[in-house]
């Protein structure tokens, strides 16, 4: 808090005489009592102005924020004081005429940051902009306006938009009034574009809701000789009473001669058409329509007869145009001098303008516009003529080089989209922003029969309901037939050892099975054996010179080969000689009778051989067992027999189908247990 002395000093600096009421003549000391609020306001304003200037020079808004916090009053009062202060600073800058555009812009930046800081009202930046633009000449307004354009996002943000949009609109309209459409076309365009970006599409102030025409757009041309520019020079000079110079004029009363013959007939008819384009409602009147018809037919006949060529001369011109950067052709109004008529007729762009005018006019005449009065209706003849002429116009458009076809398609497309805009207008220009939809009551379930995809596979556990319990059960066993066929449970082909186990057993001479009872003699068995061998055994395909008298003999040899290879099951090996020689204890019957498909090895019999028992470790190295596995075996059991068994079991697990007798025999031999190996291979 500052003392009142401080305030008084500030005020003194600001100019006490301004505050002195001329009628009351109250002194400063007295003034304190009588004008407390005004004093405070002016003190504050001066202080803030000084701080603002300081902020500008230091390029930070801190001094201003500090000042704001120091001055007395509530938020609203302080804010309005700052508004005034900033406007005052700007006013001073403008009056001093020493500031540049950048200075003004930095002040406006300051005001924007003040709004963000919350010390200034949101309308102030806009008021400042308006003030600046009102006071500056147009070339500087250009720079200020660039700033406005660049900050569209700021203006559109929540804090600024509602406060500032009307100010911006007024500001832009004021600028547009000052500018000339033909001299400052680009600037006018920029302003329009800025407004288009600022406001949403359905903003009413930017719309021509009533579909009114620009009736002021009158095309002037020479309707009779008096108005002709040809005669003007002559009459002016005559009025001045000057001597007519020799050789300057032609005959006495004739206008100055022009150098080319002019078709006035076409000239007048052609430019009269522009009046119908300006005010299309005239077309609904019968007599005007007749004139329009006649003149249009003549003009279009000229266009039809006078075809534009795109031969070498104009191609060169086109290339020049393209080379110059594809300059855009633009003009604000038609030039209607009669001397230009020939040149205009031979210009592609001019023709395109005129033909496009026709198409737009026809679209209006035919279209459903809400604001047309009820008398504006075409009769059948008119409609027919319009349709025929539309076809002719499109044909002429296509013939105009360059790229006539492309242009015509583009025009057609654009006019089609116009229909959408037309209906939008008829509906009163509704906003394009989609509203959140309110949830309606849930839809009634449709009675339509569902497609199969809808009810198949949708039940719990993705079950498919066939409509019948039994069918459902059957179908859900497996939905896919092919997958079902591939499943393991359908693997009916037996393995070799399974099928041949009996034969192998019978082949063992120790079992003393008589020849005639051997299963290999059974032709049925034999056939099945052959089939199985062809699917599973490589021996089937090995060429051999051996001649077999019968299938049974062949099968015998195969069986003996297989017996050597197949991992033998304890179930059958129980009867082998190996077991018998070394068997002291009975093998637990469960193990024997399980008859597992993944083969046990013949480990048990070896265990009974005490020689191996303690020396299982020697075998282990030849069975390529890892040290870790050996340690595991040792920890699992203390009994050496058990350890030997574990070894063999581990080996079998690892080898799987490779856990064959042959491999075991090889390892045993390598380990030095040849006796055991021989016993094993004999069995």
């Amino acid at each position, binding site marked *: 808090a500052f003392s009142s002395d401080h305030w008084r000093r500030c005020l003194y600096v600001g100019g006490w005489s301004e505050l002195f009421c001329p009628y009351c003549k109250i002194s400063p000391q007295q003034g304190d009592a009588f004008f407390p609020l005004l004093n405070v306001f002016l003190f504050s304003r001066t202080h803030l102005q000084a701080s603002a200037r300081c902020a500008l020079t230091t390029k930070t808004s801190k001094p201003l924020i500090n000042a704001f916090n120091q001055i007395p009053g509530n938020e609203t009062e302080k804010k309005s004081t700052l508004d005034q202060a900033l406007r005052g600073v700007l006013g001073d800058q403008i009056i001093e005429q020493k500031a540049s555009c950048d200075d003004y812009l930095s002040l406006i930046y300051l005001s924007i940051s003040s709004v963000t800081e919350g010390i200034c009202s949101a309308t102030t930046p806009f008021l400042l902009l308006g003030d600046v633009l009102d006071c500056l000449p147009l070339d500087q307004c250009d720079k200020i306006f660039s700033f406005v354009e660049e900050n569209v996002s700021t203006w559109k943000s929540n804090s600024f938009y509602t406060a500032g949009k009307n100010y911006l609109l007024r500001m832009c309209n004021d600028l547009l009034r000052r500018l000339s459409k033909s001299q400052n076309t680009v600037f006018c365009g920029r302003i329009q574009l800025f407004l288009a970006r600022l406001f949403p599409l359905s903003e009413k102030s930017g719309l021509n809701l009533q579909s009114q025409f620009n009736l002021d757009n009158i095309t002037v041309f*020479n309707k*009779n*000789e008096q108005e*002709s520019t040809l005669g003007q020079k002559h009459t002016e000079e005559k009025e001045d009473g000057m001597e007519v110079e020799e050789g300057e004029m032609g005959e006495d009363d004739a206008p100055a*001669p*022009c*150098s*080319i*013959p*002019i*078709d*006035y*007939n*076409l000239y007048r008819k052609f430019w009269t058409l522009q009046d119908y384009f300006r005010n299309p409602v005239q077309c609904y009147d019968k007599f005007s329509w007749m004139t329009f018809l006649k003149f249009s037919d003549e003009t279009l*006949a*000229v266009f039809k*007869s*006078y*075809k534009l*060529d795109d*031969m070498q001369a104009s191609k060169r011109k086109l290339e020049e145009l393209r080379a110059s950067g594809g300059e855009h052709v633009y003009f604000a109004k038609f030039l209607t001098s*009669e001397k230009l008529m*020939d040149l205009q*007729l*031979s210009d592609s762009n001019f023709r395109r303008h005129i033909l496009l005018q026709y198409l737009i006019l026809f679209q209006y005449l035919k279209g459903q516009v809400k604001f047309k009065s009820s008398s504006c209706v075409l009769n059948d003849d008119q409609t027919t003529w319009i349709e025929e002429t539309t076809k002719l116009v499109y044909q002429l458009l296509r013939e105009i080089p360059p790229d006539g076809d492309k242009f015509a398609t583009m025009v057609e497309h654009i006019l089609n989209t116009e229909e959408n805009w037309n209906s939008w207008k008829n509906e009163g220009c509704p906003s394009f922003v989609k509203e959140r939809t309110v949830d309606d009551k849930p839809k009634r379930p449709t009675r339509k029969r569902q497609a199969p995809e809808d009810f198949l596979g949708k039940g719990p556990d993705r079950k498919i309901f066939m409509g019948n319990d039994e069918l459902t059960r059957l179908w859900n066993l497996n939905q896919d037939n092919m997958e079902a066929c591939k499943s393991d449970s359908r693997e009916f082909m037996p393995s070799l050892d399974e099928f041949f186990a009996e034969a192998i057993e019978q082949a063992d001479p120790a079992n003393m099975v008589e020849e005639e009872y051997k299963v290999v003699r059974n032709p049925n068995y034999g056939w099945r054996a052959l089939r199985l061998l062809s699917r599973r055994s490589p021996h089937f395909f090995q060429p051999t010179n051996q001649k077999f008298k019968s299938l049974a003999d062949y099968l015998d040899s195969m069986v003996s080969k297989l017996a050597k290879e197949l991992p033998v099951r304890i179930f059958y090996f129980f009867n082998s000689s190996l077991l018998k020689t070394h068997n002291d204890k009975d093998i637990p019957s469960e193990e024997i009778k399980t008859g597992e498909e993944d083969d046990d090895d013949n480990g048990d019999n070896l265990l009974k051989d005490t020689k191996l028992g303690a020396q299982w470790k020697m075998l282990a190295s030849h069975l390529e067992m890892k040290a870790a596995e050996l340690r595991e075996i040792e920890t699992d059991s203390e009994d050496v027999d058990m350890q030997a068994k574990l070894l063999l079991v581990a080996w079998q697990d690892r080898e799987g189908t490779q856990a064959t007798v042959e491999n075991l025999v090889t390892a045993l031999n390598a380990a030095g247990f040849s006796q055991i190996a021989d016993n094993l291979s004999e069995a």
Partner: protein
Amino acid sequence: MGPVELLHMSVFSQSFSPCGRFLAAGNNYGEIALFSLSAALSPDATGLSQKPVLTFTAHEGPVFSLLSTDCHLLSAGNGEVSAWSWTELIKKNVKPLWTKRPNYKSSLEIPEINSMTINSRDNSLIVGGGDNNLHVLDLEHGVFKAVLQGHSDYVHCVTMREREAEILSGGEDGAVRMWDSRTAQSVHCIDVYKYESCARPQFGKWISCLTTDSDWMLCGGGPSLSLWHLRSLSPTSTFPLSGCQRQAAFYQDMILAVGEGPFVSHCLLGGDVKAQIPCSPQSLNTLQLNTNSTEHRVLTVGGSSAHIDVFTNLSYRAFSLSF
């Protein structure tokens, strides 16, 4: 002139006045009409401006040929040539200055004169017509000084090759003959129909149009319109125009041709037809460009109709003058 006569009228010849402000046109009834171009082209022209300022009967038969000199209008009719003064005509005085008749061998039938041309070197008039010959009239002395014989059938068209002082004539016999004006002898004879590129046997061999600019020659008729190089006497390009062409002219880098068909053909020297501008008569006989005045520089065409089409811009018909 009743409506039936108007319906059957054909315009055969045209000529512009030396000042360029008037057009004279001759029709099949032997009449010559004078039209004021300045009135028709002025900003406040009315329907009346498109009517003749003067119409008079010049000959008994059709006026097939009209020619303008510095101050005279020469017209050819039924075997005779008449001369009129332009200044007198503009004042609506229709008395001819003189009328002359070439020496025809036979006095029973009077051959028509189809075409005339002026040899400015020795101020003589060359006329060609139905007696298969060309007659040279000395304008200074008013006597026929030479007869050029060579054609075996009547002569359709005559033109002058200025630089070499040669006369070119085309005839019904299909031959284009070149004559030396001093010796009155035929120096060349081209049978156009014998050249395959030009020949159109279905139309015949007659040559109805002939024009030259000293190096090049355009000729056409039965055979198709073709451009010839005169030094080498060979055709360089032919123009694919249907129908027989009756008159052709060089214009800037284009060729304008009229003939059968209600249009004026614009062709390029290479042989392409650039454009065909529609006009009102069903077929055209005569084509003239007004080179005597820049502000009235129009193209006019006339044919089997009482209307003469005027083109201010070569690419479309502006309006028509009518008898």
